[in-house]
């Protein structure tokens, strides 16, 4: 498998106080995979994404995107934060939030114009939310809000997508809609990295997986490494999942 390496993490260590949240993480994510990051609560899954994206400052370590430092490659990367990280009562519309996805390529001061609006509307259509474009965001359901966040990242037209628990608190319809979009992204050659909680759906949704619990336990193709051994190492209890049926 002579794939390009999309994301490379070297010796990444992050600590909030004294205790490290992430310890010496080395990670290579090949281009074009749909990867789940799994691990127990407090394992540092969200922290890993935030540290890669420069939201949290690491104590040590480096991140490269396609061989170059992340700061030079921002335009290749899109981020879908946890839905609960923002105040949905903020006075703005669904379309406005999706438009924010174009702000990065616009840069400082420049205003979004027709071109940006068109891109945002297309993204809304992709996630099936076009009819809700003028809706105030507090009047959207949890699943709809998640789709808006996804649309905002789609507008960025990036090569690599980082998503923090996109399936949290959404209904089955939205979950299927989202996973279909993620699979489409992979088909288009994009790399998608998802913090994921539901172990049952890992083999069905993803082709790559990283086990994380402060340290990296394992990373690789789901069919090779998603087994009881690694689950037990990660979650610390005897884990039996009937996955390889």
């Amino acid at each position: 498998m002579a794939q390009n390496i999309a994301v490379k993490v070297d010796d990444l260590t992050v600590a909030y106080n004294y205790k490290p949240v992430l310890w010496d993480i080395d990670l290579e994510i090949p281009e074009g995979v749909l990867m789940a990051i799994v691990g127990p609560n407090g394992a540092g899954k969200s922290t890993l994404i935030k540290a890669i994206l420069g939201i949290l400052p690491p104590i040590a370590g480096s991140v490269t995107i396609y061989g170059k430092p992340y700061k030079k490659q921002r335009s290749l990367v899109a981020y879908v934060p946890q839905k609960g990280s923002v105040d949905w009562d903020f006075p703005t519309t669904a379309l406005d939030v999706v438009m924010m996805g174009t702000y990065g390529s616009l840069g400082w001061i420049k205003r979004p114009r027709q071109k940006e609006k068109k891109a945002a509307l297309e993204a809304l259509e992709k996630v099936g939310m076009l009819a809700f474009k003028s809706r105030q965001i507090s009047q959207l359901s949890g699943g709809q809000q998640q789709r808006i966040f996804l649309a905002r990242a789609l507008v960025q037209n990036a090569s690599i997508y980082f998503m923090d628990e996109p399936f949290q608190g959404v209904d089955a319809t939205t979950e299927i809609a989202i996973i279909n979009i993620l699979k489409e992204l992979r088909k288009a050659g994009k790399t998608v990295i998802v913090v994921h909680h539901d172990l049952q759906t890992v083999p069905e949704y993803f082709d790559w997986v990283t086990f994380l619990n402060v340290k990296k336990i394992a990373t690789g193709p789901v069919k090779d490494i998603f087994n009881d051994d690694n689950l037990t190492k990660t979650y610390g209890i005897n884990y039996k999942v009937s996955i390889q049926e």
Partner: protein
Amino acid sequence: MNLNEYFSLVFSDYTLRTITLGTAILGAVCGMLGSFAVLRKQSLLGDAISHAALPGIAIAFLITGAKDTNTLLLGALVSGLIGTFWIKGITSKTHLKSDTALGLILSLFFGFGMLLLTFIQKQPNANQAGLDKYLFGQAATLVESDVWLMASVTGLCLFVILLFWKEFKMLLFDPDYTKTLGFNTRIIDILITSFIVLAIVLGLQTVGVVLMSAMLLAPAAAARQWTNSLSTMVILASIIGALSGVFGTAISASQNNLSTGPVIVLVASVFVLFSFIFSPSRGLLFRQWRFIKNRRDLEQHKTLAFMYHIAKTHDNISHPHTIKILNNFQGFTRGTLQKLVKKNYVELEGNMWSLTDEGFKTASNLYNQQSNE
């Protein structure tokens, strides 16, 4: 002077015009920036900043010995900024939450400021009187140059907001995401906060240290009730702020000895109260009204659906049934039945009821609607 006299004098009388213009501009700029403070959930920051400005005023007086407004406000600006960055420092460097940091800095700076004020008052210097007007403000001391200063700061503030609108909006909504797009969020943050500090300092002369935060928050809180768009909210908050300034000044000028600052704040609070109650989408009144109406509608629908299920079992849908049957249905009242009769869905004859054709059709539609959802 009564209110009518005030409004007839406001354009001709120099002093009145200056004061009114000053309080109106102050209200506008505070409303504008207050919207950002409220949406960032930093409502209390304004309170801490204004209290933190007090020692700056005293120190500026001690150093220069002069009571020149601009010098004193410069001192207020410096100590307000120091207080703000200490708050930010405490929250980011320690485990303390921001409310603790705010409370700490607020009381520390205010206490120190009061200490300095009493110290100054004990000085054998005839010049010292009047510094305490910064506690509650004194709009009557506004002169034309003060108004010009306020107007320039407001103009600058407006320019910056228009220039960085997109950045401000995004930072308010989702700071982490803003960072990933490559924007320096620290710069945006410092820009917003500095302008809030500037607006507060400008208001100290008029409204005073103690009440200044209300000028910042009240117009924004009122405006939020009426709109779901950020730009409308900012514009509306400025208008409400300006109106509070004008009416506050008018009321205090027409009633002798009422101090202007508190009256302005009270007027702004009336706007808030009015908005909380009467806003169509978020107001208490309409919410309660919608709630009751929805319940009534649901009660009627449920009763109609219940009748529909009974009527459905008969070949003739308008076959009469006794009202007693309905007592088995929880939530049924005579009132609901009367309303259904009034809507022509049901006919009553003695102790018997029957569905009309229209009622039957409506009920079956209702049933389909519910099961489709």
